[in-house]
């Protein structure tokens, strides 16, 4: 298997392919290769929206070859946080990259007019996208399908107006329903005048020992379809956690003013599944089918005329655009998710920005003058929809501030104590305890998925853990996920890929690794990411934790700043930083 990188320069319109065997040997692929390429391409202090800022898409040695190795990682300098940008998407992108023969794609430069990139195997073209600039993300996919080849094996990734207008938490929609959601890759696309990228290929992969390959494949497949863990994602899906966390007092509600939502039953995963779910989909290469699609049917006249929208949902959007905004109906949440899908906004950041604005309006930090008379009030679906449109358009100074993220807006208007961001990234939907807070703070991309702190809190709630033990667990996850993300597997399936299974599956494609080598790789990847973060000004000792976390009771009871500070101190010590 040749492991190649495709370099594309939008300024000059040129592209070339380079073999980088050594890079992949040392850093595996995926996020390992991604961070090294970012270091090469992005010197200190670069403006994340400048033409020189790179976009790196990378896959790993198992993508397309083994079950549930379905993700692609995007590495970039985040326009939202100003430091490491890293986001993962499923769909068909990793498969398309595999069969086009590119393990990584590096995009640099800025096109002189709206453009999209078309990749067919080794053929790369930069095409005019003027006529689709300004069009929503969904329609962009519809249009490009007509013009490009590779039906059924291609991937179309694109931005909506939010990315074009450089909203700092604009995402990139992948094959409809999947996203590079977090940290603003959509704005980076927009700054390059890059509307979309279409990729397909016709290559195949020869494995060194087909018999062994089949044996390992079958074992992993069997584990995947038979474990309980995956059944959870298959059935109700991630939104099964709405009821669970609501009962346990861990569901952020109304901007974390509460940790349980009295109306929670109305927006539970069960409610969605029984009344709106009409279909499940899979990423290519995964038998689970966790992508849950709801049909949102609404009448637009009294004469039985309906419009039906197909909206995907998960736990996080139901939290951020639901309980977090006091929305009491599944339909209301689906409407807000749909606005984010069309405009190309990250649902999580968008919800947290709106919940902060709602409180800021209640507290008089802002007035209806700033909101342009849009009623940003709990459970006001129409008001929130209009606010999202205003953020995308950048209607006035206030909305332009909101478009830069909650941290920026709170710096300007006040209310940092309830501006729910950690490491400048709007937080995920878990008020579970100190491990969730510390996990997101120390995490390389300030995501709940960096180290799964929320799960550590839940474990600790059952069987108490001291702060040191929690930190040990966080570090273990930080490192092991670095390895898994170099492969680039779906984190839902991390249970399937035990160290032994990783070694076996790598062996089946001709890569020999020991357990120690993998553990070392995880640590090295983490260190390289921190090097980049520190270079761009991230300082863990000055990390800000909004007071609200300490005011609202969590799943683990009251969280004290002392506990969080102690865990941070232990974390730094164990990492050898103090």
């Amino acid at each position, binding site marked *: 298997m040749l492991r190649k990188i495709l370099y594309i320069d939008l300024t000059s319109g040129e592209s070339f392919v380079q073999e980088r065997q050594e890079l992949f040997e040392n850093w595996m692929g995926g996020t390992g290769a991604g961070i090294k390429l970012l270091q090469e391409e992005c010197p200190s202090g670069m403006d994340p929206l400048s033409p020189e800022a790179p976009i790196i898409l990378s896959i790993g040695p198992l993508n397309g070859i083994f079950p549930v190795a379905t993700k692609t990682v995007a590495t970039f300098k985040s326009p939202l946080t100003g430091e490491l940008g890293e986001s993962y998407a499923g769909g*068909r992108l990793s498969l398309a990259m595999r069969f086009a023969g590119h393990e990584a794609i590096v995009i640099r430069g800025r096109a002189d007019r709206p453009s999209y990139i078309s990749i067919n195997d080794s053929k790369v073209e930069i095409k005019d996208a003027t006529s689709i600039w300004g069009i929503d993300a969904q329609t962009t996919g519809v249009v490009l399908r007509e013009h490009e080849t590779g039906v059924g094996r291609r991937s179309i990734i694109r931005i909506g107006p939010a990315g074009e207008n450089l909203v700092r938490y604009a995402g990139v929609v992948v094959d409809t329903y999947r996203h590079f959601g977090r940290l603003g890759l959509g704005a980076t696309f927009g700054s390059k005048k890059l509307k979309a990228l279409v990729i397909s290929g016709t290559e*195949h992969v020869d494995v060194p020992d087909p018999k062994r390959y089949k044996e390992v494949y*079958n074992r992993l497949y069997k584990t995947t*379809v038979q474990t309980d863990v995956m059944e959870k994602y298959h059935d109700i899906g991630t939104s099964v956690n709405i009821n669970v966390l609501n009962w346990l007092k861990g569901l952020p509600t109304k901007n974390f003013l509460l940790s349980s939502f009295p109306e929670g039953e109305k927006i539970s995963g069960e409610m969605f599944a029984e009344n709106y779910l009409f279909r499940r989909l899979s990423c290519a*290469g995964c038998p689970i089918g966790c992508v849950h699609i709801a049909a949102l049917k609404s009448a637009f006249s009294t004469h039985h005329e309906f419009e039906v929208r197909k909206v995907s949902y998960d736990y996080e959007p139901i939290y951020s655009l639901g309980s977090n905004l006091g929305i009491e109906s599944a339909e209301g949440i689906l409407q807000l998710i749909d606005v984010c899908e069309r405009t190309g906004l990250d649902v999580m950041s968008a919800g947290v920005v709106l919940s902060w604005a709602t409180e800021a309006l209640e507290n008089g930090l802002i007035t209806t003058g700033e909101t342009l008379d849009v009623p940003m009030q709990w459970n006001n679906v129409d008001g929130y929809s209009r606010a999202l449109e205003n953020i995308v358009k950048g209607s006035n100074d206030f909305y332009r501030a909101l478009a830069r993220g909650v941290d920026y807006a709170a710096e300007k208007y006040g209310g940092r104590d309830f501006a729910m961001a950690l490491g400048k990234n709007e937080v995920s939907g878990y008020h579970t305890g100190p491990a969730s807070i510390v996990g997101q703070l120390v995490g390389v991309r300030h995501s709940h998925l960096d180290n799964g702190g929320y799960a550590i809190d839940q474990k600790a709630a059952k069987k108490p853990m001291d702060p040191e033990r929690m930190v040990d667990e966080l570090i273990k996850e930080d490192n092991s996920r670095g390895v898994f993300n170099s492969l680039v597997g779906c984190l839902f399936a991390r249970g399937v890929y035990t160290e032994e299974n990783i070694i076996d599956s790598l062996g089946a494609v001709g890569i020999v690794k020991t357990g120690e080598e993998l553990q070392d790789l995880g640590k090295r990847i983490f260190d390289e990411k921190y090097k980049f973060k520190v270079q761009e000004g991230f300082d863990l000792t000055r990390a800000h934790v909004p007071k609200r976390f300490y005011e609202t009771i969590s799943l683990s009871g009251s969280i004290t700043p002392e506990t969080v500070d102690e865990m941070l101190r232990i974390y730094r010590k164990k990492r050898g930083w103090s």
Partner: protein
Amino acid sequence: MNRNVEDLAGTKVEMEAETKIPVFPEREALRLNPEKTEDAAPKPKTRRRLKVAHPERCIGCLGCMFACSRTRTGTVSLQDSAIKVQTQGGIEGDFRVVVCRGCEDAPCARACPEGALEKKPDGRVVFHKDLCTGCGKCEKACLVGAISLGKEKMPIKCIHCGACVDFCPHGVLELEEVPVSGG
């Protein structure tokens, strides 16, 4: 339990039954058990045929396509799969699952000018690689698009082995036994 199938050149090969993987227990009943069928109906003569029983249940995982190329050629390839899962308007639309229908009067065999696709008396169509010139007439003859040229510019012909059935997590595919006419 091994079963005999024909490879691309039409020769009998023994295929391991390692692909038989119980997916979700309740769906086991949907899958045809070849041993039982043989016991229950030794006569009249039947042949095995792949069937898209529930196309609307497809989730687009492409597991069947990978199972096909993996089992038959030992590679990872979408091009070399005889079964095809197509999208209609992206994944927002419905999937279309294309399999060989095992036609009695097979148009692909009729269209082949070289006799490389040979119609057997029991209704099966057998491919002789050595006779194929890669002209693609078989591909044009099949309206459903079940036969197409693979990466070596040779037709990829479904042999109704059922490898794909075992890797469909949603019970979309089934193997059925159909009577052999005049058999």
